[in-house]
């Protein structure tokens, strides 16, 4: 190996010779390297989630039972909202790849159209995630535990986080042993008097989710939800900003003058990666 650093290389094999050894530009290659490292970060998070879930002896919440609400509707729609978010992100990925394709034809109008739709799709996704977080944090009624450690779900017609016993239709439903389930249809519902008695003797009341405890399952469940979807949401947010900047540059004609739209391709790589990560988060956090 000694002496290699001082060995003279022909300019042909170097990028200084104007030729990439991989037929790929410096910027695109560095974007790929960044994406590989970012992919390892997300893999680390998902493997850590798997580790905790696999090692715990407690019951773990199931995605289709936790995420089953739609904005403005009552009733159970398991995973429909998350599926809509996935669809939004996949379609904004499609508009991005169409923007890249238009860039290859030097079609400035096409690039603007598709990139604009990509930005809109990304913004929709971030907004959807905000609603999902809000719903997750506020919860569906929560549960109480008695001094003997028995768990009861709180049911209400209207969700009142301050004093559930005041809200109309307040009653308790005994929770199944070792299960994290929002009260099933047909479960044994206590009458109002018995519910009030248990409510007044409660040891604690858990409603919604925060970093310390949550009504869905072990504390780590909510912590991983916040961290994984939050980290991904931050990537989407950054992607929207990057796409917006590139869009403005396209409108100003920067890339047209440059002679190629490779910047759209590089931003596109990042944007597809965000979609790619969501595919895995969707499977390993929501489906499994």
């Amino acid at each position, binding site marked *: 190996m000694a002496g290699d650093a001082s060995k003279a290389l022909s300019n042909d094999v170097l990028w200084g010779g104007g030729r990439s050894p991989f037929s790929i*530009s410096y910027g695109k290659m560095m974007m790929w390297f960044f994406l590989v490292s970012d992919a390892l970060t997300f893999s680390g998070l998902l493997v850590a989630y798997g580790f905790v879930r696999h090692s715990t002896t407690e019951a773990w919440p199931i995605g289709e039972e936790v995420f089953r609400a739609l904005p403005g509707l009552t009733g159970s729609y398991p995973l429909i909202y998350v599926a809509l978010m996935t669809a939004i992100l996949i379609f904004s990925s499609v508009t991005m*790849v169409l923007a890249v394709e238009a860039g290859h*034809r030097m079609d400035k109008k096409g690039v603007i159209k598709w990139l604009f739709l990509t930005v809109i799709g990304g913004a929709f996704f971030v907004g959807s995630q905000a609603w999902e977080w809000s719903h997750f944090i506020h919860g569906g009624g929560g549960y109480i535990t008695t001094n003997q450690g028995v768990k009861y779900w709180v049911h209400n017609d209207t969700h009142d986080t301050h004093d559930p016993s005041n809200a109309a239709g307040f009653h308790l439903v005994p929770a199944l042993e070792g299960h994290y389930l929002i009260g099933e249809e047909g479960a044994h519902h206590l009458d109002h008097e018995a519910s009030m008695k248990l409510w007044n003797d409660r040891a604690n009341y858990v409603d919604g989710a925060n970093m310390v405890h949550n009504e869905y399952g072990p504390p780590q469940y909510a912590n991983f939800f916040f961290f994984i979807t939050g980290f991904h949401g931050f990537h989407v947010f950054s992607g929207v900003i990057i796409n917006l900047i590139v869009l403005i540059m396209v409108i100003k004609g920067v890339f047209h003058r440059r002679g190629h739209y490779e910047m759209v391709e590089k931003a596109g790589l990042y944007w597809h990666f965000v979609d790619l990560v969501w595919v895995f988060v969707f499977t390993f956090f929501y489906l499994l």
Partner: protein
Amino acid sequence: MERDDIIEYSLDAHHSEEEGAKIRRNIWMVTLFLAVVTTIEVTLGAYWKDWFDASAWNMIKWTYVVLTLVKATYIVMSFMHLGDERKNIRMIILAPYAFFILYLLYIGLVESNYVHQMWEHFL
């Protein structure tokens, strides 16, 4: 100084109208495929309990993993155009990642199994 992001290294930075039409058709086919796979996943997640008994869960789990990897392959190879790049850059990106991730999965599973057993026995 000459800016090196302006030099065009990439061989596929431009294509003609006819090639573009072909590429667009391919993009929409991949989109349709991804949408169908996601629909299958969600439907399976929502209704599998009505269709199969509890013992099928293991098989459904593996179905999810396989479908996810199929989706990921299409996104990386088609949308991110890695399939169109040269083989050397493809391997430089995929091989180290696959190596690290297989190790991470292996150590995660082994260690979490161990921790699970310890908690079961000593708590």
